[in-house]
Each structure stands twice: as C-alpha cells, then as structure tokens.
C-alpha cells in the first residue's frame, strides 16, 4: 500500500479540526468581560428600563450579602431579572444549596419579580457583555431586551 504524502493528511486534519471548532461563531469580547475571567470585577447593576435601576441595585446588594458569593451582575429586563454570580471556590461544593438560598431570599423579598439565577461562568460573561453594550446610547432597549431573553434561554438549555 503506497501512502499519500503526509501533507495531504495534515490538511485533512486541519479541515476536520476547523469543522469541529467552527460550529459556533465567536463574537467580539470586551475588556471587562475578559478580565472577569481572572478577577472580581464588581459590575454595576443595570436595567433595560431607566427607572428600574434602583431595584436592580438593591437586588445586587441583597445577593452580595450571601457570604459564599463574591461577584454579582444583575440585569433587570421587562419581565425577568437576571442574576449572575460567582461562588467562592471552596464553596463550590455547595453550589446547589447556594442557588436555592439566593432564590428563596429574593423571592421572599421581591415576590412580584421573576428571577433567573445562575452561577454559570458563561452567563456571567454574557451579562457583562450586555451591560457594556447597554452603556452605549445607540443600543436600543428593544435590542437589549432581546439579548437578555437570549441569555436566559441559553441558560436554560442543559447539554
């Protein structure tokens, strides 16, 4: 059996490699979301509607008071409030418990609001991305709401 030169196979490998990784398109990331991977960034709480800012800020304070948590991002949308947080590493064993605790606390305090709580790292990054975009005046609140919905949907899918 004669073998084709290794270059041909190398190319094939490359193609397969890129197929494998090319299934989802990457998006531009901001400085803050990048640094959020390594350190605590303490992002400002925001809301799609201007007037909801205070509520979001209050929610953030409440979540922050949970001792196992060190970094919280809150975005209030029309119907839902997205709460993304980071758990101190040694507490990560109890993530489920912490999530339940936060849910209970928030629901008790704000019975009317609908909370989406996530400790997922990716959701945290996405939240910061969205927050950064919202700071831009040209970014309409409709777009923001849509993107928030997308993140929430994204959070709910499991595998």
């Amino acid at each position, binding site marked *: 059996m004669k073998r084709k030169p290794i270059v041909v196979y190398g190319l094939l*490998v490359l193609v*397969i*490699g890129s197929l*494998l*990784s090319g*299934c*989802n*398109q*990457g998006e531009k*990331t901001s400085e803050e979301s*990048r640094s959020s*991977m390594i350190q605590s960034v303490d992002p400002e709480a925001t809301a799609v509607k201007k007037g909801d800012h205070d509520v979001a800020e209050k929610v953030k304070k409440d979540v922050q008071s949970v001792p196992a948590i060190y970094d919280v991002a809150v975005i209030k949308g029309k119907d839902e409030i997205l709460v993304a947080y980071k758990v101190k590493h040694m507490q990560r064993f109890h993530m489920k418990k912490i999530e339940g605790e936060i849910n209970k606390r928030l629901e008790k305090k704000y019975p009317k609001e609908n909370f989406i709580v996530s400790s*997922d*790292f*990716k*959701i945290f*990054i996405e939240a910061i991305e969205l927050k950064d975009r919202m700071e831009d005046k040209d970014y309409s609140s409709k777009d923001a709401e849509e993107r928030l919905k997308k993140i929430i949907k*994204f*959070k709910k*899918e*499991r*595998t």
Partner: protein
Amino acid sequence: MAKQKSPEQKRYEKIEQKHEAKRPVVKNCIKAFFVGGSICLVGQAVSYFYMYYFHFTEQTAGNPTVATMIFFAMLLTGFGVYDKIGQFAGAGSAVPITGFGNSVISAAIEHRTEGFVLGVGGNMFKLAGSVILFGVFSAFVVALIKTLLLIWGVI
C-alpha cells in the same frame, strides 16, 4: 484463582517473590498524579476556551471539550507518542478520557491491515468495549434503583 496451589508451587512462589522486581508504586503514583493532573488542566483550559470564544456554558462546554481531548489523543496515538506517555505515566494517561480515546484509536489503527470492516470495525472497541458495557449497565442499575425509590417515595 480458584485452583489450589500445590506445596511445590507454594514453595516456588516464595523463591519467586524474593527475586521479583517490585513495582515502584509511590513513584508511579507521583507520575500518574502529575501527568493526569496536567491532562485535566489542559481540559480545563480547553473548556474555558469554548466558554469564552464560543457559545457554551459551563454545563455545555463539557461535550466539545471531551471531543477535543479525544482529537488530541488521536494525534498523539497516531504519531506514536501516546504509548510512550502511557509507559511513563501509567494511570495518569489511561484514566482521563484521552486514555479511552487512545484505547479505541490504537485498536482501530492496529487492525487496519485486516480491512476496514472486519479489522477496524470489528476491533475498534475490543479494549474500550468493557468500559462502555460496565458504564452503561451500572448506570442502568443505579438510575433504575433511584427512580424506583423516587416513585415509591422513599427518597
């Protein structure tokens, strides 16, 4: 072994034990720890890569990470490196998912001289098959018990 050893065999066992080279357990464990740990470290980096540059959450990044690690295992196996790592690291390279990939890929490569259907197809899982069998069957039993307990309201 079920068979009883004869007195002669027992006597020989003693002589043999005296000369047998002992496996360097501690050294092997240290090597396994560092190589195995490093493979997991690479896996963690790959999963952060998927989370950061692509649309994957912590939950969903596992799948592409596993696929990528097995892809690495294919390259290392094909270029004849993985068996050398294996001799050095023992369980350090066998226990991670790359070791599972290596067992499938090495068998596939080895038997291609017997053709793609009977050779590659027939032998691909000759090492990994037992992992799948015991994984699936034990998962079935565990999940069945747990589901039944939930249905009966025990837990």
